[in-house]
Protein backbone atom coordinates (compact mmCIF):
# COMPACT_ATOMS: atom_id res chain seq x y z
CA UNK A 1 0.00 0.00 0.00
CA UNK A 2 2.70 2.43 0.94
CA UNK A 3 4.34 3.86 -2.14
CA UNK A 4 7.83 2.52 -2.64
CA UNK A 5 8.80 5.11 -5.20
CA UNK A 6 7.74 8.45 -3.88
CA UNK A 7 8.02 11.08 -6.53
CA UNK A 8 6.55 10.98 -9.98
CA UNK A 9 3.77 8.51 -9.36
CA UNK A 10 2.47 10.26 -6.26
CA UNK A 11 2.55 13.89 -7.32
CA UNK A 12 -1.19 13.85 -7.91
CA UNK A 13 -1.68 12.69 -4.33
CA UNK A 14 0.32 15.63 -3.09
CA UNK A 15 -1.82 17.91 -5.24
CA UNK A 16 -5.00 16.35 -3.90
CA UNK A 17 -3.67 16.55 -0.34
CA UNK A 18 -2.90 20.24 -0.77
CA UNK A 19 -6.39 20.78 -2.13
CA UNK A 20 -8.03 18.98 0.82
CA UNK A 21 -5.91 20.89 3.31
CA UNK A 22 -6.75 24.18 1.62
CA UNK A 23 -10.47 23.40 1.79
CA UNK A 24 -10.18 22.38 5.43
CA UNK A 25 -8.21 25.44 6.42
CA UNK A 26 -10.31 27.86 4.40
CA UNK A 27 -12.22 29.17 7.45
CA UNK A 28 -8.90 29.84 9.16
CA UNK A 29 -7.68 31.75 6.11
CA UNK A 30 -10.95 33.62 5.95
CA UNK A 31 -10.65 34.71 9.57
CA UNK A 32 -7.20 36.08 8.75
CA UNK A 33 -8.42 37.76 5.58
CA UNK A 34 -11.39 39.44 7.23
CA UNK A 35 -9.20 40.65 10.08
CA UNK A 36 -7.19 42.69 7.55
CA UNK A 37 -10.14 43.99 5.56
CA UNK A 38 -11.22 47.61 5.81
CA UNK A 39 -14.60 48.18 7.43
CA UNK A 40 -16.06 49.65 4.23
CA UNK A 41 -14.92 46.61 2.24
CA UNK A 42 -16.47 44.09 4.63
CA UNK A 43 -19.77 44.26 2.82
CA UNK A 44 -18.27 44.41 -0.66
CA UNK A 45 -19.92 42.23 -3.25
CA UNK A 46 -18.14 40.17 -4.48
CA UNK A 47 -16.11 39.84 -1.27
CA UNK A 48 -12.40 40.56 -1.26
CA UNK A 49 -10.68 37.23 -1.51
CA UNK A 50 -7.29 38.60 -0.64
CA UNK A 51 -6.43 41.63 1.53
CA UNK A 52 -4.72 43.63 -1.25
CA UNK A 53 -5.20 46.80 0.69
CA UNK A 54 -4.73 45.59 4.28
CA UNK A 55 -5.63 47.58 7.32
CA UNK A 56 -4.48 47.08 10.86
CA UNK A 57 -7.41 48.90 12.47
CA UNK A 58 -8.66 45.63 13.83
CA UNK A 59 -5.32 44.76 15.41
CA UNK A 60 -4.98 48.22 16.86
CA UNK A 61 -8.37 47.74 18.49
CA UNK A 62 -7.25 44.39 19.92
CA UNK A 63 -4.06 45.81 21.35
CA UNK A 64 -5.95 48.79 22.71
CA UNK A 65 -8.75 46.87 24.37
CA UNK A 66 -7.91 43.23 24.76
CA UNK A 67 -4.42 43.22 26.22
CA UNK A 68 -5.67 42.74 29.80
CA UNK A 69 -7.88 39.88 28.61
CA UNK A 70 -4.89 38.21 26.95
CA UNK A 71 -2.94 38.57 30.19
CA UNK A 72 -5.80 37.07 32.18
CA UNK A 73 -6.00 34.12 29.81
CA UNK A 74 -2.25 33.53 30.13
CA UNK A 75 -2.54 33.62 33.91
CA UNK A 76 -5.49 31.23 33.94
CA UNK A 77 -3.74 28.89 31.51
CA UNK A 78 -0.57 28.84 33.59
CA UNK A 79 -2.49 28.34 36.85
CA UNK A 80 -4.42 25.49 35.29
CA UNK A 81 -1.20 23.80 34.13
CA UNK A 82 0.35 24.00 37.60
CA UNK A 83 -2.76 22.76 39.40
CA UNK A 84 -3.27 19.92 36.93
CA UNK A 85 0.30 18.65 37.12
CA UNK A 86 0.41 18.94 40.92
CA UNK A 87 -2.71 16.84 41.28
CA UNK A 88 -2.24 14.42 38.41
CA UNK A 89 1.45 13.44 38.50
CA UNK A 90 1.46 11.96 42.04
CA UNK A 91 -1.90 10.32 41.37
CA UNK A 92 -0.53 8.70 38.22
CA UNK A 93 2.42 7.42 40.25
CA UNK A 94 0.11 5.94 42.89
CA UNK A 95 -2.13 4.34 40.26
CA UNK A 96 0.62 2.99 38.03
CA UNK A 97 3.42 1.99 40.39
CA UNK A 98 2.28 1.88 44.00
CA UNK A 99 -0.53 -0.70 43.95
CA UNK A 100 -3.09 1.74 45.17
CA UNK A 101 -6.04 -0.12 46.65
CA UNK A 102 -9.17 0.51 44.62
CA UNK A 103 -7.31 1.72 41.57
CA UNK A 104 -9.77 0.07 39.20
CA UNK A 105 -12.59 2.01 40.78
CA UNK A 106 -10.59 5.22 40.59
CA UNK A 107 -9.80 4.64 36.91
CA UNK A 108 -13.48 4.06 36.29
CA UNK A 109 -14.44 7.24 38.14
CA UNK A 110 -11.96 9.21 36.04
CA UNK A 111 -13.39 7.85 32.79
CA UNK A 112 -16.92 8.67 33.89
CA UNK A 113 -15.83 12.14 35.04
CA UNK A 114 -14.82 12.94 31.48
CA UNK A 115 -18.34 12.27 30.27
CA UNK A 116 -20.04 14.88 32.44
CA UNK A 117 -21.18 17.84 30.36
CA UNK A 118 -19.38 21.09 31.15
CA UNK A 119 -22.66 22.97 31.35
CA UNK A 120 -23.68 20.79 34.31
CA UNK A 121 -20.34 21.35 36.02
CA UNK A 122 -20.75 25.08 35.39
CA UNK A 123 -24.08 25.14 37.21
CA UNK A 124 -22.70 23.13 40.10
CA UNK A 125 -19.68 25.41 40.39
CA UNK A 126 -21.92 28.46 40.18
CA UNK A 127 -24.03 27.16 43.06
CA UNK A 128 -20.92 26.46 45.13
CA UNK A 129 -19.09 29.68 44.26
CA UNK A 130 -22.05 31.97 44.89
CA UNK A 131 -21.96 30.94 48.54
CA UNK A 132 -18.19 31.04 48.88
CA UNK A 133 -17.89 34.37 47.10
CA UNK A 134 -15.63 32.86 44.45
CA UNK A 135 -17.60 34.10 41.45
CA UNK A 136 -15.66 36.44 39.19
CA UNK A 137 -12.31 35.40 40.61
CA UNK A 138 -9.36 34.14 38.60
CA UNK A 139 -8.70 31.40 41.16
CA UNK A 140 -12.23 30.10 40.87
CA UNK A 141 -11.94 29.96 37.12
CA UNK A 142 -8.59 28.16 37.28
CA UNK A 143 -10.11 25.43 39.45
CA UNK A 144 -13.17 25.06 37.21
CA UNK A 145 -11.05 24.94 34.04
CA UNK A 146 -8.75 22.33 35.54
CA UNK A 147 -11.64 19.87 35.89
CA UNK A 148 -11.45 19.33 32.15
CA UNK A 149 -7.75 18.50 32.26
CA UNK A 150 -7.25 16.57 35.50
CA UNK A 151 -8.95 13.24 34.62
CA UNK A 152 -7.23 13.24 31.23
CA UNK A 153 -3.90 14.03 32.85
CA UNK A 154 -4.15 11.28 35.47
CA UNK A 155 -5.02 8.69 32.83
CA UNK A 156 -2.16 9.86 30.61
CA UNK A 157 0.38 9.77 33.45
CA UNK A 158 -0.87 6.35 34.57
CA UNK A 159 -0.58 4.93 31.08
CA UNK A 160 2.95 6.23 30.70
CA UNK A 161 4.24 5.44 34.18
CA UNK A 162 3.07 1.84 34.11
CA UNK A 163 5.51 1.37 31.24
CA UNK A 164 8.52 2.46 33.31
CA UNK A 165 10.82 -0.55 33.79
CA UNK A 166 10.61 -1.89 37.34
CA UNK A 167 14.37 -2.38 37.44
CA UNK A 168 14.82 1.37 37.55
CA UNK A 169 12.56 1.64 40.57
CA UNK A 170 14.26 -1.27 42.29
CA UNK A 171 17.65 0.27 41.64
CA UNK A 172 16.44 3.46 43.30
CA UNK A 173 15.22 1.44 46.28
CA UNK A 174 18.58 -0.31 46.56
CA UNK A 175 20.11 3.12 46.88
CA UNK A 176 17.81 3.72 49.82
CA UNK A 177 15.34 5.98 48.13
CA UNK A 178 11.83 6.02 49.56
CA UNK A 179 8.62 6.44 47.60
CA UNK A 180 8.98 10.22 47.54
CA UNK A 181 12.63 10.25 46.44
CA UNK A 182 11.87 7.66 43.75
CA UNK A 183 9.01 9.80 42.52
CA UNK A 184 10.98 13.03 42.39
CA UNK A 185 14.31 11.77 41.10
CA UNK A 186 13.34 8.80 38.90
CA UNK A 187 9.68 8.80 37.89
CA UNK A 188 9.14 12.50 37.27
CA UNK A 189 12.21 13.05 35.09
CA UNK A 190 11.32 9.96 33.04
CA UNK A 191 7.79 11.27 32.57
CA UNK A 192 8.98 14.58 31.15
CA UNK A 193 7.19 14.04 27.85
CA UNK A 194 3.93 13.18 29.57
CA UNK A 195 4.25 16.34 31.62
CA UNK A 196 4.74 18.33 28.41
CA UNK A 197 1.67 16.77 26.79
CA UNK A 198 -0.43 17.29 29.90
CA UNK A 199 0.71 20.91 30.25
CA UNK A 200 0.04 21.61 26.62
CA UNK A 201 -3.52 20.36 26.78
CA UNK A 202 -4.26 21.87 30.17
CA UNK A 203 -3.10 25.23 28.85
CA UNK A 204 -4.99 25.01 25.58
CA UNK A 205 -8.24 23.94 27.23
CA UNK A 206 -8.05 26.69 29.82
CA UNK A 207 -7.15 29.22 27.13
CA UNK A 208 -10.08 28.14 24.93
CA UNK A 209 -12.65 27.75 27.67
CA UNK A 210 -15.84 29.67 27.11
CA UNK A 211 -18.50 27.88 29.18
CA UNK A 212 -16.87 28.35 32.57
CA UNK A 213 -15.73 31.87 31.76
CA UNK A 214 -19.17 32.93 30.60
CA UNK A 215 -20.88 31.50 33.66
CA UNK A 216 -18.48 31.89 36.58
CA UNK A 217 -16.71 35.06 35.50
CA UNK A 218 -19.36 37.06 33.70
CA UNK A 219 -19.02 40.26 35.66
CA UNK A 220 -15.42 39.98 36.68
CA UNK A 221 -12.90 42.73 36.21
CA UNK A 222 -10.48 40.23 34.77
CA UNK A 223 -12.10 38.47 31.85
CA UNK A 224 -10.28 35.97 29.64
CA UNK A 225 -9.88 36.51 25.91
CA UNK A 226 -12.66 34.12 24.89
CA UNK A 227 -15.13 36.22 26.83
CA UNK A 228 -13.50 39.31 25.36
CA UNK A 229 -14.35 38.06 21.86
CA UNK A 230 -17.85 37.12 22.90
CA UNK A 231 -18.58 40.51 24.43
CA UNK A 232 -17.09 42.12 21.37
CA UNK A 233 -19.51 40.26 19.12
CA UNK A 234 -22.36 41.42 21.31
CA UNK A 235 -21.29 45.06 21.25
CA UNK A 236 -19.98 45.61 17.72
CA UNK A 237 -21.85 43.45 15.29
CA UNK A 238 -20.52 45.50 12.38
CA UNK A 239 -16.83 45.51 13.27
CA UNK A 240 -16.14 42.01 12.06
CA UNK A 241 -12.59 42.90 11.10
CA UNK A 242 -11.87 43.76 14.74
CA UNK A 243 -13.66 40.64 15.96
CA UNK A 244 -11.66 38.49 13.56
CA UNK A 245 -8.44 40.27 14.55
CA UNK A 246 -9.17 39.33 18.16
CA UNK A 247 -9.85 35.79 17.02
CA UNK A 248 -6.53 35.66 15.19
CA UNK A 249 -4.69 36.89 18.28
CA UNK A 250 -6.55 34.37 20.44
CA UNK A 251 -5.40 31.62 18.08
CA UNK A 252 -1.72 32.48 18.42
CA UNK A 253 -1.01 30.04 21.28
CA UNK A 254 -2.62 27.21 19.32
CA UNK A 255 -0.54 28.06 16.26
CA UNK A 256 2.68 28.32 18.26
CA UNK A 257 2.03 25.05 20.04
CA UNK A 258 1.23 23.28 16.81
CA UNK A 259 4.52 24.37 15.30
CA UNK A 260 6.68 23.84 18.38
CA UNK A 261 5.05 20.79 19.86
CA UNK A 262 3.18 18.94 17.16
CA UNK A 263 4.41 15.56 18.31
CA UNK A 264 3.02 16.18 21.79
CA UNK A 265 -0.31 17.17 20.32
CA UNK A 266 -0.58 13.98 18.32
CA UNK A 267 0.65 12.11 21.39
CA UNK A 268 -2.15 13.58 23.46
CA UNK A 269 -4.76 12.43 21.01
CA UNK A 270 -3.46 8.91 20.78
CA UNK A 271 -2.31 9.12 24.36
CA UNK A 272 -0.04 6.58 25.86
CA UNK A 273 1.95 6.62 22.68
CA UNK A 274 4.49 8.97 24.21
CA UNK A 275 7.72 7.07 24.27
CA UNK A 276 11.23 8.18 24.77
Amino acid at each position, binding site marked *: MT*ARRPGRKTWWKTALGVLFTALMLFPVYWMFNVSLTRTRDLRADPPHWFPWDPTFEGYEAVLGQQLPALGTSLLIGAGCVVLTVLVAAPAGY*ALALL*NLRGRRTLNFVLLVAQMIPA*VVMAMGFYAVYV*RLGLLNTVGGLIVADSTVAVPFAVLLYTAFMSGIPREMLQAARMDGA*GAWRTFVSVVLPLSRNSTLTVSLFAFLWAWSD*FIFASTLNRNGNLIPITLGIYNYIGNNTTQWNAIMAT*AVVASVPAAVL*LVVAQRYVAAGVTAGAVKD
Partner: protein
Amino acid sequence: MTTIPTAVGTSRDRRGVAGTVPATPAGRRRRHAPGPSRWAAVGFAAPLLVYLALFYAYPLWRNIDLSVHDYTIRAFVQGNAEFVGLEKYAEVFGSSTFPAALWNTAVFTIVSIVLQYSIGLALAVFFRSSFRLSAVLRGMFLVPWLLPLIVSASTWAWMLNSDNGIVNSVLAAFGVGQINWLTSPDTALLAVTIANIWLGIPFNLVILYSGLQNIPGDVYEAASLDGAGAWKQFWSITFPLLRPVSAITLLLGLIYTLKVVDVIWVMTTGGPGTSSTTLAIWSYREAFGTGQPDFSPAAAVGNVLILIALVFGFLYLQLQRRQEES
Protein backbone atom coordinates in the same frame (compact mmCIF):
# COMPACT_ATOMS: atom_id res chain seq x y z
CA MET B 1 -12.07 20.85 22.18
CA THR B 2 -13.19 18.59 24.92
CA THR B 3 -13.14 15.73 22.49
CA ILE B 4 -9.60 14.78 23.32
CA PRO B 5 -9.47 13.52 26.86
CA THR B 6 -10.95 10.09 26.38
CA ALA B 7 -8.63 9.47 23.53
CA VAL B 8 -6.65 8.10 26.42
CA GLY B 9 -9.20 5.39 26.77
CA THR B 10 -9.15 4.69 23.09
CA SER B 11 -5.46 4.37 22.85
CA ARG B 12 -4.92 2.47 26.03
CA ASP B 13 -6.32 -0.62 24.50
CA ARG B 14 -4.18 -0.34 21.40
CA ARG B 15 -1.01 1.65 21.79
CA GLY B 16 -0.98 1.45 25.55
CA VAL B 17 -0.75 -2.30 25.27
CA ALA B 18 2.96 -1.90 24.80
CA GLY B 19 3.10 -0.16 28.13
CA THR B 20 0.79 -2.34 30.16
CA VAL B 21 1.61 -5.81 28.97
CA PRO B 22 5.21 -5.99 30.16
CA ALA B 23 4.15 -4.20 33.30
CA THR B 24 1.65 -6.80 34.42
CA PRO B 25 3.98 -9.66 35.39
CA ALA B 26 6.30 -7.24 37.10
CA GLY B 27 3.35 -5.80 38.95
CA ARG B 28 2.44 -9.24 40.18
CA ARG B 29 5.94 -9.79 41.42
CA ARG B 30 5.91 -6.51 43.23
CA ARG B 31 3.09 -7.61 45.42
CA HIS B 32 5.41 -10.10 47.09
CA ALA B 33 8.38 -7.81 47.21
CA PRO B 34 8.45 -5.52 50.21
CA GLY B 35 7.57 -2.25 48.51
CA PRO B 36 6.55 1.12 49.79
CA SER B 37 3.59 0.80 52.10
CA ARG B 38 0.06 1.17 50.92
CA TRP B 39 -0.06 4.38 52.89
CA ALA B 40 2.45 5.87 50.51
CA ALA B 41 0.10 5.03 47.64
CA VAL B 42 -2.79 6.68 49.45
CA GLY B 43 -0.60 9.69 50.19
CA PHE B 44 0.28 10.18 46.55
CA ALA B 45 -3.32 9.73 45.47
CA ALA B 46 -4.64 12.00 48.23
CA PRO B 47 -4.51 15.27 46.27
CA LEU B 48 -6.54 13.67 43.50
CA LEU B 49 -9.07 12.18 45.92
CA VAL B 50 -9.54 15.52 47.67
CA TYR B 51 -9.76 17.22 44.30
CA LEU B 52 -12.40 14.82 43.01
CA ALA B 53 -14.47 15.19 46.16
CA LEU B 54 -14.31 18.99 46.23
CA PHE B 55 -14.45 19.84 42.55
CA TYR B 56 -16.43 16.99 41.05
CA ALA B 57 -18.61 15.32 43.65
CA TYR B 58 -19.61 18.48 45.50
CA PRO B 59 -20.64 20.55 42.43
CA LEU B 60 -22.51 17.55 41.07
CA TRP B 61 -24.29 17.05 44.35
CA ARG B 62 -25.18 20.74 44.40
CA ASN B 63 -26.55 20.31 40.92
CA ILE B 64 -28.89 17.53 42.03
CA ASP B 65 -29.83 19.68 44.99
CA LEU B 66 -30.69 22.53 42.61
CA SER B 67 -32.96 20.33 40.56
CA VAL B 68 -35.12 19.17 43.47
CA HIS B 69 -35.62 22.64 44.95
CA ASP B 70 -37.29 25.72 43.61
CA TYR B 71 -34.33 28.04 43.32
CA THR B 72 -34.78 31.64 42.41
CA ILE B 73 -31.81 33.97 42.35
CA ARG B 74 -32.84 35.26 45.80
CA ALA B 75 -33.18 31.80 47.30
CA PHE B 76 -29.83 31.08 45.75
CA VAL B 77 -28.01 33.58 47.88
CA GLN B 78 -30.07 33.01 51.03
CA GLY B 79 -30.14 29.25 50.64
CA ASN B 80 -33.79 28.80 51.67
CA ALA B 81 -35.25 27.31 48.49
CA GLU B 82 -38.35 25.21 48.85
CA PHE B 83 -38.04 21.46 48.35
CA VAL B 84 -40.21 20.39 45.43
CA GLY B 85 -39.09 16.81 44.78
CA LEU B 86 -39.27 15.79 41.16
CA GLU B 87 -41.62 18.58 40.19
CA LYS B 88 -38.97 20.35 38.10
CA TYR B 89 -38.33 17.16 36.16
CA ALA B 90 -42.05 16.84 35.45
CA GLU B 91 -42.04 20.45 34.25
CA VAL B 92 -39.11 19.75 31.96
CA PHE B 93 -40.62 16.61 30.46
CA GLY B 94 -43.97 18.34 30.04
CA SER B 95 -42.48 21.40 28.38
CA SER B 96 -43.01 21.87 24.65
CA THR B 97 -39.28 22.57 24.37
CA PHE B 98 -38.44 19.05 25.51
CA PRO B 99 -39.41 17.09 22.36
CA ALA B 100 -37.85 19.80 20.18
CA ALA B 101 -34.60 19.78 22.15
CA LEU B 102 -34.46 15.99 22.18
CA TRP B 103 -35.01 15.82 18.42
CA ASN B 104 -32.43 18.55 17.75
CA THR B 105 -29.92 16.82 20.01
CA ALA B 106 -30.44 13.54 18.14
CA VAL B 107 -30.14 15.12 14.69
CA PHE B 108 -27.18 17.31 15.62
CA THR B 109 -25.32 14.43 17.27
CA ILE B 110 -25.99 11.69 14.74
CA VAL B 111 -25.43 13.77 11.61
CA SER B 112 -22.27 15.26 13.14
CA ILE B 113 -20.64 12.00 14.14
CA VAL B 114 -21.57 10.09 11.00
CA LEU B 115 -20.11 12.74 8.72
CA GLN B 116 -17.10 13.47 10.93
CA TYR B 117 -16.34 9.79 10.94
CA SER B 118 -16.84 9.24 7.21
CA ILE B 119 -14.75 12.23 6.20
CA GLY B 120 -12.14 11.45 8.85
CA LEU B 121 -11.85 7.85 7.65
CA ALA B 122 -11.62 8.84 3.99
CA LEU B 123 -8.83 11.27 4.86
CA ALA B 124 -7.07 8.73 7.06
CA VAL B 125 -7.03 6.22 4.20
CA PHE B 126 -5.85 8.93 1.84
CA PHE B 127 -3.00 9.96 4.14
CA ARG B 128 -2.01 6.36 4.82
CA SER B 129 -0.07 6.12 1.61
CA SER B 130 2.96 8.29 2.01
CA PHE B 131 3.55 10.98 -0.54
CA ARG B 132 5.52 14.17 -0.57
CA LEU B 133 4.30 16.56 2.15
CA SER B 134 1.85 13.99 3.55
CA ALA B 135 3.07 14.39 7.14
CA VAL B 136 3.04 18.18 6.96
CA LEU B 137 -0.45 18.31 5.49
CA ARG B 138 -1.74 15.83 8.05
CA GLY B 139 -0.30 18.05 10.77
CA MET B 140 -2.07 21.06 9.35
CA PHE B 141 -5.37 19.25 9.62
CA LEU B 142 -5.02 19.59 13.39
CA VAL B 143 -5.34 23.37 13.24
CA PRO B 144 -9.15 23.67 13.40
CA TRP B 145 -9.19 21.53 16.46
CA LEU B 146 -6.64 23.51 18.40
CA LEU B 147 -8.35 26.85 17.88
CA PRO B 148 -10.56 28.09 20.70
CA LEU B 149 -14.13 27.03 19.88
CA ILE B 150 -15.32 30.59 20.13
CA VAL B 151 -12.86 31.58 17.42
CA SER B 152 -14.08 28.90 15.01
CA ALA B 153 -17.70 29.52 15.87
CA SER B 154 -17.51 33.26 15.26
CA THR B 155 -15.61 32.71 12.01
CA TRP B 156 -18.34 30.36 10.82
CA ALA B 157 -21.00 32.80 11.95
CA TRP B 158 -19.47 35.48 9.73
CA MET B 159 -18.92 33.09 6.82
CA LEU B 160 -22.59 32.09 7.00
CA ASN B 161 -23.86 35.64 7.38
CA SER B 162 -26.93 36.09 5.18
CA ASP B 163 -25.95 39.32 3.42
CA ASN B 164 -22.17 39.41 3.50
CA GLY B 165 -21.11 35.85 4.13
CA ILE B 166 -18.63 34.18 1.82
CA VAL B 167 -20.72 31.01 1.66
CA ASN B 168 -23.72 32.79 0.23
CA SER B 169 -21.65 34.73 -2.27
CA VAL B 170 -20.02 31.52 -3.53
CA LEU B 171 -23.45 29.88 -3.77
CA ALA B 172 -24.76 32.94 -5.61
CA ALA B 173 -22.09 32.36 -8.26
CA PHE B 174 -23.76 28.99 -8.85
CA GLY B 175 -27.15 30.61 -9.06
CA VAL B 176 -28.35 29.68 -5.56
CA GLY B 177 -30.46 32.38 -3.93
CA GLN B 178 -29.67 33.87 -0.53
CA ILE B 179 -29.90 31.38 2.33
CA ASN B 180 -30.50 32.76 5.81
CA TRP B 181 -28.30 30.14 7.39
CA LEU B 182 -28.40 31.33 10.98
CA THR B 183 -31.63 33.27 11.08
CA SER B 184 -34.04 30.88 9.41
CA PRO B 185 -35.56 28.09 11.53
CA ASP B 186 -35.15 25.72 8.56
CA THR B 187 -31.38 26.00 8.30
CA ALA B 188 -30.10 27.04 11.74
CA LEU B 189 -29.59 23.47 12.93
CA LEU B 190 -27.96 22.54 9.62
CA ALA B 191 -25.60 25.51 9.90
CA VAL B 192 -24.37 24.65 13.39
CA THR B 193 -24.07 21.00 12.40
CA ILE B 194 -21.84 21.91 9.44
CA ALA B 195 -19.55 23.94 11.71
CA ASN B 196 -19.46 21.11 14.24
CA ILE B 197 -18.58 18.52 11.59
CA TRP B 198 -15.68 20.70 10.50
CA LEU B 199 -14.52 20.88 14.11
CA GLY B 200 -14.66 17.11 14.61
CA ILE B 201 -12.80 15.98 11.48
CA PRO B 202 -9.26 16.39 12.92
CA PHE B 203 -10.03 14.22 15.96
CA ASN B 204 -11.51 11.46 13.81
CA LEU B 205 -8.63 11.69 11.36
CA VAL B 206 -5.97 11.33 14.06
CA ILE B 207 -7.61 8.41 15.85
CA LEU B 208 -8.50 6.52 12.67
CA TYR B 209 -5.09 7.18 11.15
CA SER B 210 -3.36 5.65 14.16
CA GLY B 211 -5.82 2.75 13.91
CA LEU B 212 -4.78 2.21 10.29
CA GLN B 213 -1.11 2.13 11.29
CA ASN B 214 -1.85 -1.00 13.29
CA ILE B 215 -3.09 -2.95 10.27
CA PRO B 216 -0.09 -4.91 8.99
CA GLY B 217 0.95 -3.98 5.46
CA ASP B 218 1.38 -7.57 4.27
CA VAL B 219 -2.38 -8.10 4.50
CA TYR B 220 -2.72 -5.55 1.73
CA GLU B 221 0.13 -7.07 -0.23
CA ALA B 222 -1.57 -10.46 -0.20
CA ALA B 223 -4.82 -8.84 -1.29
CA SER B 224 -3.25 -7.03 -4.20
CA LEU B 225 -1.54 -10.26 -5.28
CA ASP B 226 -5.04 -11.71 -5.38
CA GLY B 227 -5.96 -8.85 -7.66
CA ALA B 228 -8.12 -6.87 -5.25
CA GLY B 229 -8.34 -3.20 -6.20
CA ALA B 230 -8.21 -0.28 -3.80
CA TRP B 231 -12.01 -0.16 -3.39
CA LYS B 232 -12.23 -3.89 -2.71
CA GLN B 233 -9.29 -3.69 -0.32
CA PHE B 234 -10.99 -0.96 1.66
CA TRP B 235 -14.23 -2.89 2.12
CA SER B 236 -12.70 -6.32 2.68
CA ILE B 237 -9.67 -5.36 4.78
CA THR B 238 -9.52 -1.81 6.08
CA PHE B 239 -13.09 -1.41 7.16
CA PRO B 240 -13.55 -4.78 8.94
CA LEU B 241 -10.15 -4.61 10.67
CA LEU B 242 -10.81 -1.07 11.78
CA ARG B 243 -14.19 -1.93 13.30
CA PRO B 244 -13.10 -1.87 16.97
CA VAL B 245 -11.40 1.50 16.56
CA SER B 246 -14.38 2.78 14.59
CA ALA B 247 -16.84 1.75 17.27
CA ILE B 248 -14.89 3.54 19.94
CA THR B 249 -14.37 6.66 17.83
CA LEU B 250 -18.08 6.87 17.09
CA LEU B 251 -19.14 6.34 20.69
CA LEU B 252 -16.69 8.92 21.96
CA GLY B 253 -17.87 11.33 19.30
CA LEU B 254 -21.42 10.72 20.45
CA ILE B 255 -20.66 11.33 24.12
CA TYR B 256 -18.78 14.52 23.32
CA THR B 257 -21.21 15.90 20.77
CA LEU B 258 -24.02 15.59 23.31
CA LYS B 259 -22.24 18.16 25.47
CA VAL B 260 -21.57 20.80 22.82
CA VAL B 261 -22.57 24.28 23.94
CA ASP B 262 -20.06 26.88 22.73
CA VAL B 263 -20.47 26.41 18.99
CA ILE B 264 -24.24 26.53 18.94
CA TRP B 265 -24.47 29.29 21.51
CA VAL B 266 -22.09 31.61 19.68
CA MET B 267 -23.64 30.96 16.26
CA THR B 268 -27.38 30.94 16.97
CA THR B 269 -27.93 30.90 20.78
CA GLY B 270 -30.17 27.93 20.05
CA GLY B 271 -32.56 29.94 17.92
CA PRO B 272 -34.43 31.17 16.11
CA GLY B 273 -37.08 30.01 18.56
CA THR B 274 -35.96 26.55 19.57
CA SER B 275 -34.89 25.48 16.09
CA SER B 276 -31.28 24.79 17.06
CA THR B 277 -31.80 24.21 20.79
CA THR B 278 -30.22 21.00 22.02
CA LEU B 279 -30.54 19.71 25.58
CA ALA B 280 -27.16 21.23 26.53
CA ILE B 281 -28.13 24.58 25.03
CA TRP B 282 -31.50 24.50 26.73
CA SER B 283 -29.87 23.92 30.07
CA TYR B 284 -27.32 26.68 29.47
CA ARG B 285 -29.99 29.13 28.34
CA GLU B 286 -32.24 28.55 31.33
CA ALA B 287 -29.39 29.04 33.77
CA PHE B 288 -27.18 31.67 32.17
CA GLY B 289 -28.57 32.75 28.83
CA THR B 290 -31.38 35.05 29.84
CA GLY B 291 -31.62 37.98 32.18
CA GLN B 292 -33.58 35.83 34.62
CA PRO B 293 -31.66 32.74 35.62
CA ASP B 294 -33.84 29.74 36.28
CA PHE B 295 -31.48 27.26 37.84
CA SER B 296 -33.81 24.50 38.92
CA PRO B 297 -35.17 23.46 35.52
CA ALA B 298 -31.71 24.05 34.04
CA ALA B 299 -30.22 21.63 36.55
CA ALA B 300 -32.99 19.12 35.83
CA VAL B 301 -32.24 19.27 32.09
CA GLY B 302 -28.53 18.97 32.88
CA ASN B 303 -29.12 15.85 34.94
CA VAL B 304 -31.19 14.29 32.16
CA LEU B 305 -28.26 15.02 29.84
CA ILE B 306 -25.84 13.34 32.26
CA LEU B 307 -28.03 10.25 32.29
CA ILE B 308 -28.06 10.06 28.49
CA ALA B 309 -24.29 10.60 28.34
CA LEU B 310 -23.72 7.92 30.98
CA VAL B 311 -25.78 5.33 29.11
CA PHE B 312 -23.51 5.71 26.11
CA GLY B 313 -20.52 6.06 28.41
CA PHE B 314 -21.14 2.65 29.93
CA LEU B 315 -21.61 1.23 26.48
CA TYR B 316 -18.20 2.65 25.63
CA LEU B 317 -16.57 1.17 28.73
CA GLN B 318 -18.18 -2.19 28.03
CA LEU B 319 -16.88 -2.13 24.49
CA GLN B 320 -13.42 -1.16 25.63
CA ARG B 321 -13.31 -3.93 28.21
CA ARG B 322 -14.40 -6.51 25.67
CA GLN B 323 -11.66 -5.38 23.32
CA GLU B 324 -9.04 -5.55 26.04
CA GLU B 325 -10.05 -9.13 26.78
CA SER B 326 -9.90 -10.28 23.18
